[in-house]
């Protein structure tokens, strides 16, 4: 099968790979929307959605009941509803921008996924690691930031084209918030890349290399960057919350003061696109965080996938190794998504001026100080 696959033309192969990744992302994004409802319910002492059931499934003795309690069919019902609902187009909107805004949110989210490595396999001699990634470009993290920064246009356009007060305020908030936190975010990851580009090396901003640096077995090499650079990780995480518009930073749509924020005027399918885009952003953000700070596809600090391969003698099964690494990676991403929800139901929303103050007065100086500290530390170490 593998041989057949590699004999395909590269364009088709790329298409198939992309399709495979999208086919994983979409269900995760969908499941996240259900998970959000479930987690919020559980944290509030409720069972959450647990009623909808398709009659055929109800006939399955144990599983059917379990799936019903899990609320799985609510997901299908929600999706069906959003698809079949009438699509309103308010009369006062700017039609062109109003229509493309939701799609603009999806495109950057799915484009950034192409440069995020999500697994790895080794050739049989265990010599070279092949990261599993759609496009292993050398500028990895820059590409993520660059394309990710385009996501703001979706929100801005949605708010502006809606031609009504609350969406407008929401989009103004979004544009300021996103550009403010981008700076701290970028500064926070710099130490990581300085660490992996110690003087004399090739120089690379590739994300796969970051994971490589976290897959050693000796003390510093095996340590995940979250332990090595806790402050960087913290700043990045906070900025990530702000960039993905998640509580406590969901200024653009804070429903308490802005009704629905930038998507107030949206409904049905277009609204659901915003929804999917938000989760796609969360997934990409989580994936980047996992790659940068949580050791990527390595199961534990000092226990890289390579050790697993040695213990279980998987040298000749690159396919299995790849799947294992993807599974580990996905598990971490899912934990991160859970963490997003966990925080959402723990912290109240910041006020807008507080968001700005945290971003500019606290996070940015902290990020700069952190950067200087690591510059000195790395210079002393090498």
């Amino acid at each position, binding site marked *: 099968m593998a041989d057949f696959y590699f004999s395909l033309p590269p364009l088709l192969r790329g298409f198939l790979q992309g399709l495979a990744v999208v086919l994983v992302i979409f269900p995760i994004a969908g499941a996240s929307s259900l998970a959000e409802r479930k*987690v919020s319910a*559980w*944290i*509030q*002492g*409720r*069972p959450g959605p647990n009623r909808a059931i398709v009659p055929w499934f109800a006939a399955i003795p144990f599983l059917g009941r379990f799936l019903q309690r899990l609320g799985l069919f609510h997901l299908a019902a929600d999706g069906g509803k959003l698809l079949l609902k009438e699509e309103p187009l308010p009369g006062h909107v700017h039609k062109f921008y109003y229509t493309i805004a939701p799609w603009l949110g999806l495109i950057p989210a799915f484009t950034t996924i192409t440069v995020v490595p999500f697994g790895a396999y080794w050739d049989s001699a265990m010599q070279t690691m092949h990261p599993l990634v759609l496009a292993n470009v050398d500028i990895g993290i820059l590409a993520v930031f660059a394309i990710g920064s385009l996501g703001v246009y979706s929100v801005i356009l949605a708010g502006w084209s809606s031609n009504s007060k609350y969406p407008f305020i929401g989009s103004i908030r979004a544009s300021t918030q996103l550009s403010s936190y981008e700076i701290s975010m970028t500064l926070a990851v710099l130490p990581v890349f300085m660490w992996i580009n110690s003087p004399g090396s090739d120089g690379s901003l590739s994300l796969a290399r970051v994971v490589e640096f976290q897959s050693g077995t000796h003390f510093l090499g095996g340590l995940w960057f979250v332990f090595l650079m806790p402050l960087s990780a*913290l700043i990045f995480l906070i900025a990530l919350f702000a960039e993905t518009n998640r509580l406590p930073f969901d200024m653009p749509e804070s429903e308490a003061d802005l009704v629905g924020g930038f998507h107030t005027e949206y409904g049905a399918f277009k609204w659901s696109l915003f929804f999917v885009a938000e989760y796609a952003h969360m997934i990409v953000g989580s994936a980047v965080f996992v790659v940068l700070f949580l050791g990527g596809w390595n199961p534990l600090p000092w226990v890289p996938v390579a050790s697993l391969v040695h213990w279980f003698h998987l040298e000749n099964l690159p396919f299995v190794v790849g799947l294992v690494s993807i599974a580990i990676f996905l598990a971490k991403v899912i934990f991160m998504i859970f963490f997003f929800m*966990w*925080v959402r*139901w*723990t*912290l109240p929303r910041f006020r807008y001026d507080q968001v700005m103050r945290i971003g500019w007065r606290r996070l940015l100086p902290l990020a700069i100080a952190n950067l200087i500290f690591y510059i000195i530390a790395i210079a002393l170490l090498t």
Partner: protein
Amino acid sequence: MPATVKVLERKPLSFAERTYLPQIAAGLKTTIKHLFAPKVTMEYPEQRPEILPGYRGVPTLVMDPHGREKCVSCQLCEFVCPPKAIRITPGEVPADQPERSHVEKAPREFEIDMLRCIYCGLCQEVCPEEAIFLQNVYSTSGYTRASMVNNKQRLYELGGTLPDQHFKWDRKKAAETAGNARH
């Protein structure tokens, strides 16, 4: 004596407190505990709340322990009902109940419009026969307006039988027979 005001000095926040991080961690701990705590939701149609005595639910008609109709169709409840939810069509006591023939009247039809009823309980208050009670039925629903009107049969189904201390009409009958026997 004037109340003494004790001024508490507000302690300046420590550095850890000013970063908010310990507080956030504590909050996360609390919420994760709730995540695994038993759920408090009552899953309604299957599980029902326990209704305590004295609850003012849907007004119903009740029968006495012998299974006999208590309402005498005096129409006081119809008269007192503030939103005019009750409509009574008076009638004769059915011929197959000779022991109740001295009651003279019984409702032929008795309708309570639950779209009008405000659950005030005045009908129960006013009834001289203790025939109408607001009991523990708390959920009524229907697809049409007509289905929201409880007729006599339905009212008795909902009401059932309640214990009766007086058996007023039995005693009247006994008194009547005793009096007649004396003359």
